[in-house]
């Protein structure tokens, strides 16, 4: 289990940031991802693996009209 924006999400082996974003349906482009407080750069979303028990912040910025 991991925590994403204070919500519990089921964890599995080799879960990448990209995969997590898909699971959460976080399709908004202006986001900032931090895993256990450490910033993850966008080019690393595919390769950065999330460990079980991690605390993930997916900070959505604002956009639109």
């Amino acid at each position, binding site marked *: 289990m991991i925590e994403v924006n204070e919500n519990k999400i089921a964890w599995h082996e080799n879960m990448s940031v990209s995969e997590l974003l898909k699971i959460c349906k976080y399709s908004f482009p202006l986001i900032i991802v931090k895993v256990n407080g450490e910033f993850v750069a966008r080019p690393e979303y595919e390769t950065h693996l999330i460990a079980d028990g991690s605390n993930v912040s*997916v900070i*959505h910025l604002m956009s*639109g009209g």
Partner: protein
Amino acid sequence: MENKYSIEEIKKAHKILKEFTYSPKSLSKGYSGETLYVNLSTNEIKIKQVTDQMKNIFIGGRGFGLWYLWNAVTGKTKWNDPENEIIISPGPICGITQYPGAGKSLVVSLSPTTGSVMDSNVGGYFGPYLKFSGFDALEIQGKAEKDVVVFIDGDNGRVTIEEAPLEEVNSHIICEQLTELYAKDEADRMHVATVASGKAAEHSLIGHLNFSFYDKRRKGTRLKQAGRGGIGTVLRDKKVKGLIVRTSNIKGDTNNPADQALLNKTGIKLHKEIYRNDEKQCHMRTQGTAHLVEIMSDYDLLPVNNFKFGAHEKARQMASWVWQKKFTQGIPDGCWFGCTMACAKAVDGFEVKTGPYKGHKVIVDGPEYETVAGVGSCCGIFDPDAVIELNFYCDTYGVDTISFGTLTAFAMECFENKIITEKETGGLKLNFGNHEAALELLHMMARGEGFGKIAGMGVRKMKEYFVKNYGADAKFLQDIGMECKGLEYSQYVSKESLAQQGGYALTNKGPQHDEAWLIFMDMVNNHIPTFENKAEALHYFPLFRTWFGLNGLCKLPWNDVEPETNSKTDEPAKVPEHVQNYVDLFNGVTGKNIDKKELIRMSERVYNFQRVFNLKMGFGTREHDIPPYRSVGPVTSEEYESRKDRYDKQLKEKAGIDPAGLSTEEKVKKMREFREKQYQTLVDAVYKRRGWNERGIPKLETLKELSIDFEDVVNLVKSKI
């Protein structure tokens, strides 16, 4: 485009009612120091001086509009009284070409739908050209006897009021006609900008203004809308067919800024950022704001069937990539010179399928996100071509796509609940998803016929009409009618964000997202968990966004593109680097020396003044800040059941109520009690943060601290406390 009359015939039929000459003043540090006043009842035209107090307290744009209107009307003035005004003011930064999004105008008037003061922002060239013709604002009062146009010739220092009997009223035609009529030749058309409305504005209360700009690549006029609050209806009530300004005084430094080099430097930085990042971020240059459609559905925020739901599997039929294909690509689509964000997308050569222009091929500006969601998903319509057709007709008939979408969705829900039937609608089968019926409703509105006229009154007045004439349940209509203060909601589902419920209902003019859009910050990020956190956000963001409207700026370049380093800043939601850009732009144009705190302070003065203006008009107190329950939570069992797991969990974890054993109706009731209490607590917190009393009235010390403790303001507030 086929016209009934030739340009020569139209020109010949004009009769000059009044001619006024003036010496156009050069701008100095963003201001001309003069306002053009036109009275259509008396044909008086004069110049008013812009005082230092106006510049220091009200800045420009919306601030100037509020100040002029405050002095023009009493608390008893109605929107269709001759005393009501339409004020167009661009603001001191407006017209610079170095920084994206610097061509906006603000329009202020008393609204037909709210009865109080309305502001609406708009692109197009009219505002900057008005400035370059020597005016910080245009103030129109009175009512003409016959249809007129007002022409401002900035090149020759001449203003005329002219009878204009032969022009069309609908905007896609009249804006072309007036552009051709007042341009010296084809090359001069880009020096002409116009304002017009349309036939539906004459028969409804939701009329909007189209501000044109000539697109030399398309060889046609484009239309941007001052959409909210029915100001197009006011324009046609004054019998104005069009406003025209012409100037060839268009240079990068026409504002005569204090520090041109600072503007250049700040602008270049953002241009580069847009070129680097837009295709990785919001795709504004290829999709405009329509990039949001499928994203909003993913987050359960896209209004579906009158805001009952926030997502739909068919949303992808109207997704960003669909619009990208329909929009003509590779054309610099800025609605003002120098805007590299270029999000004013258009569908070219669209063949109209219904109504008076059936078979015509037209340019359709947009659709933007709000239009796709409003006339599309909110009405259960997911056909992109139907959305484009509704977009086209709303624009040319002069009605706001947001209000039209929300009121049509309301009528559809009433139809599905048998509150109204085909008997009342004149045969329209107003089921969700019936785009033919939605289009015919729009045509009926333009013809001033039957149910079109009733619907055109807007949601608030429709509710009253249905209760009075059809015996509808007033409480149910209050719950599902998505309006607050008389203005229809814009297109985001706010049920799961308490902060956004306040972001909509605690606005000055009514539920429009241009004050605050806090849903992600609140609902997704969980960054503002306490009432105090939410109140702070509902203090800062409405004020920050108000500032754009004081200065003639577009909001989009603030946060629809972001620097790579933004994620590492302390407050990424504010986009600190861009906030500094705006400080630099203001100082660069005006020569003043503000910082980011003073920026907020500037807005706070105007924002509080507008709240007091609402008081003057009989509103502006707590009871007017309460949203319809559809904006707060599930009204019906159908809505509750559609998100049962979410709501059951919330009842248990947030409200401390075990949902087991409760019927759906009981759960809806318990949820409502919980959420409505939460909302009231939020209101208390926001009022406290804003320096208002528990009834929502600005305290005298707040007015004094903000230096807006003018005698009439203080007397008014004292009389209301």
